[in-house]
């Protein structure tokens, strides 16, 4: 039995005593056109009805045989390369057996001892996180629970069955909830930047599991708690914190936390034990006889490598090193694919013009400038002008005046009707909108033209 508790933010009085040891398993659905082992459409989230993207293979009909999707394999290798992994020259698929209604064949085609990618790493601001392996497998069907005719039932939709799923397994190198979140962000940005997955946690195209334990002396603890059902970054952070607190309490009382699988429960703001059936899982892996072995040549690896453009992490580092960009700005923008070219140009130009890059980027972030309408050159000109405080873009001035007229309809009407003094309030309004930067005379002239011209 576990003691009920509520986690109270920041109250971790034994922080110094125990260090969290966290390893992550991240599942990412690849956005290939077709499924992993058959030609069914890979679009489970947008499917209008259940069970419309199925065939003998992904429905596990008798006699059906899987044939692997080349693109999914290439993308897995691409991800492995981006995670600094070694690529296994000889690889294969294996069958992983367990029974569950969402698993069509009673086994999942996965990879056991010869995954495509091994021994990689990712740099976080807290230190390096080792990547144990990256392998390819198939997703299961989707189960939902319902009441039909007064009976509790589970309903199964096989549209998702057989969607290519990449699993990234890390070393237990993560030591805080903040580092965990940063790491996940990096992974998410990476797969999005490679354009191989939507990595959307709410829709389930990115899913997380964490192995969490605590050490007091830096050695690897002799237990680990697996946490599942984490479907947002926030829940990830919360479940890590919740586990740290829970396990600390158990350790403090002189006991060792039970090795088990727990699930995050948002309603309870804690993890709860997910008891498995009697007799622990034994997946009985063996080489998938239906799929011949896979041999990956150096030229194939080189060709995949050449398709990888600059990765977000690399870009971030380059912006920091070359332009002295603030780390938080760089993190925010490095993986926004459609902005990258623009930002690059702005940074380059501002360096040339001796303008502080952080000021320029800060404006972009804080003022939410519509970058589709303003070219990098115009933006820099405007910022330069702002800095010298002299010239204000006429267009902007006009828009402030229009706004003032709109905001003060009575005053405007009075001025139009001949009351000269009324213009004072309008000018005051515009000056305040321009934070005193506008030229009063010009403002007066434009208002006059607009209302009496």
């Amino acid at each position, binding site marked *: 039995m576990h003691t009920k508790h509520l986690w109270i933010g920041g109250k971790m009085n034994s922080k110094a005593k125990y260090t969290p040891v966290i390893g992550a398993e991240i599942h990412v659905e690849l956005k290939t056109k077709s499924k992993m082992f058959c030609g069914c459409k890979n679009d489970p989230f947008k499917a209008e009805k259940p069970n419309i993207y199925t065939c*003998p293979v992904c*429905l*596990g*009909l*008798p*006699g*059906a*045989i*899987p*044939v*692997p999707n080349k693109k999914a394999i290439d993308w897995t290798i691409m991800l492995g390369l981006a995670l600094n992994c070694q690529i296994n020259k000889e690889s294969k698929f294996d*069958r992983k*057996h367990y*029974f569950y*209604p969402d698993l*069509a*064949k*009673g*086994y999942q085609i996965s990879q056991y001892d010869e995954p495509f990618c091994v021994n990689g790493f990712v740099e976080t601001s807290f230190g390096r996180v080792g990547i144990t392996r990256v392998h390819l497998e198939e997703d299961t069907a989707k189960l939902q629970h319902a009441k039909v005719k007064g009976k509790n039932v589970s309903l*199964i939709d096989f549209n998702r069955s057989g969607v290519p799923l990449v699993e990234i397994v890390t070393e237990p190198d993560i030591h805080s909830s903040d580092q965990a979140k940063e790491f996940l962000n990096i992974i998410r940005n990476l797969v999005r930047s490679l354009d191989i997955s939507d990595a959307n946690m709410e829709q389930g195209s990115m899913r997380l599991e964490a192995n969490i334990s605590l050490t007091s002396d830096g050695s690897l603890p002799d237990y680990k708690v697996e946490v599942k059902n984490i479907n947002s970054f926030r829940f990830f952070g919360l479940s890590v914190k919740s586990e740290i607190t829970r396990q600390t309490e158990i350790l403090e009382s002189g006991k060792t936390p039970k090795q088990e699988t727990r699930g995050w429960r948002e309603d309870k703001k804690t993890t709860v034990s997910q008891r498995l059936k009697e007799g622990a899982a*034994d997946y*009985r*892996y*063996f080489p998938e*006889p*239906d*799929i*011949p072995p896979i041999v990956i040549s150096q030229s194939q690896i080189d060709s995949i490598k050449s398709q990888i453009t600059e990765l977000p992490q690399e870009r971030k580092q380059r912006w920091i090193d070359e332009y002295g960009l603030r780390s938080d700005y760089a993190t925010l923008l490095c993986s926004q694919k459609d902005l990258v070219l623009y930002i690059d140009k702005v940074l380059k130009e501002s360096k040339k013009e001796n303008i502080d890059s952080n000021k320029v980027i800060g404006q972009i972030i804080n003022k939410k400038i519509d970058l589709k309408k303003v070219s990098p050159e115009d933006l820099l000109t405007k910022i330069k002008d702002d800095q010298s405080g002299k010239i204000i873009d006429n267009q902007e001035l006009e828009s402030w005046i229009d706004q003032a007229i709109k905001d003060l309809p009575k005053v405007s009407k009075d001025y139009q009707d001949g009351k000269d003094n009324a213009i004072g309030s309008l000018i005051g309004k515009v000056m305040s909108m321009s934070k005193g930067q506008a030229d009063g005379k010009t403002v007066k002239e434009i208002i006059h033209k607009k209302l009496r011209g």
Partner: protein
Amino acid sequence: MKLNELTITNTLKGLENHDFSSEEVTKDCLSKIGQTNKKINSFISIFEEEAIASAKIADEKIKKGDKLPLLGVPFAIKDNFLTKDRRTTAASKVLDDYIPQYSSTVIRKLEYAGAIILGKTNLDAWCHGSSTETSDYGSCKNPHDTNTLPGGSSGGSAAAISSNQTIGSIGSETAGSIRQPASWCGVVGLKPTYGRVSRYGVIAMGSSLDSPGPLTKTTEDAAKVLEVISGLDKFDGTTSPKKVENYHKNLSADIKGMTIGIPKEYLMEDSQEGINQLVLDAAKQMEKLGAKIVEISMLDPKYSIAVYTIVQRSEVSSNLSRFDGIRYGNDRSLMGPEAKRRIMLGTYALSSGYYDAYYKKAQKVRMLLKKDFERVFQSVDTVLAPTSPSTALPVGSSLNHPMFGEIADVLVEASSMAGLTGINIPVGFIGKLPVGMQIIGNYFQEQTVLNLAHAYETSVDWRQNEFKS
């Protein structure tokens, strides 16, 4: 002579010459099935109406001069091949009401070639056996003596050919399931090289072993059928891209200079008396035709029993996992005792802590079996041996003998484990029961195996007399 007694070759000739129609052949087969099925129990499902309708369409095509390789020829299909919209059971009550949503590649190829599907034949449930008496639809009987078994698991297809219920038939072999029933029923049965014929839509038993193939009245027929069903299939990644030869056209009885090896370990002392002698007599006949016979030595076939048991049951335990009664069929409580035994042994062999000692060890010995054949094929063109150590055994023999099949198939297991091709052809009788001989060929050497079988078959009078029309 009744039309159902014809070979494929003669049926095609007669149809082409308009001596008779496909409808007539089909009806003769159906009527023979009607007369004898109660006794032999070779069919689980009979598609009478559909078969006659297809025969009528075939007759129209023949009239128009269409030339398809099997146009209008009736076939009996082992009931582990999926037939779209037509019940497929694998002889297990788990699939009692299963109506497949798609057809196997072999069925599609046969239908495309113009064949008529008469119905689905009996087998050991899930192919688990060598007797066809573990079928949930009752034991099949050997037409030569209904007190004996037809062998299995393709016992229904072998019995259907042997009793002239059909012109051609299709079976599948994991290790012995074509050759051994062909031997016991006195018919020709060809097991192609693994990957020569697509497994797509064939209810899987041992995925690294299963090889669909023909059971026919003559070798010539087998060549004709093999040509139709072979080839690369994009739905089965283990099929070979090697070109399909014109086995039938290239069939040649000229075997001069061919070297045939007879492994002394395969002439087992405890085989039934008379079997080894009949095979050696057949070898003498081949020698007369110009072949060279040499004695060779190979790994003791006893090892292949253990290798086969472990690998096949491991794959069975995995392949039968999908039958959970959710998407189709009934739940697993309807699995028979043999299926339960096999699933559990396979589960054990794959489970953590035992994998290396059983599954991995077996796959390593399997490599030794392959290498043993590779060594032998450096000096011989084919390997000759009895197919089975006995003639058909009495009904009831397999019951309560959990290893019955593995022992009955001792002489065909090694070549199956290695994925090689092999054929059974009848070489005589002991009493009223047939004796078969197997010819094993190297990978994709189906033509060599067929030629040798054809040379022997066409040189002995008693075989020729069986098919005089």
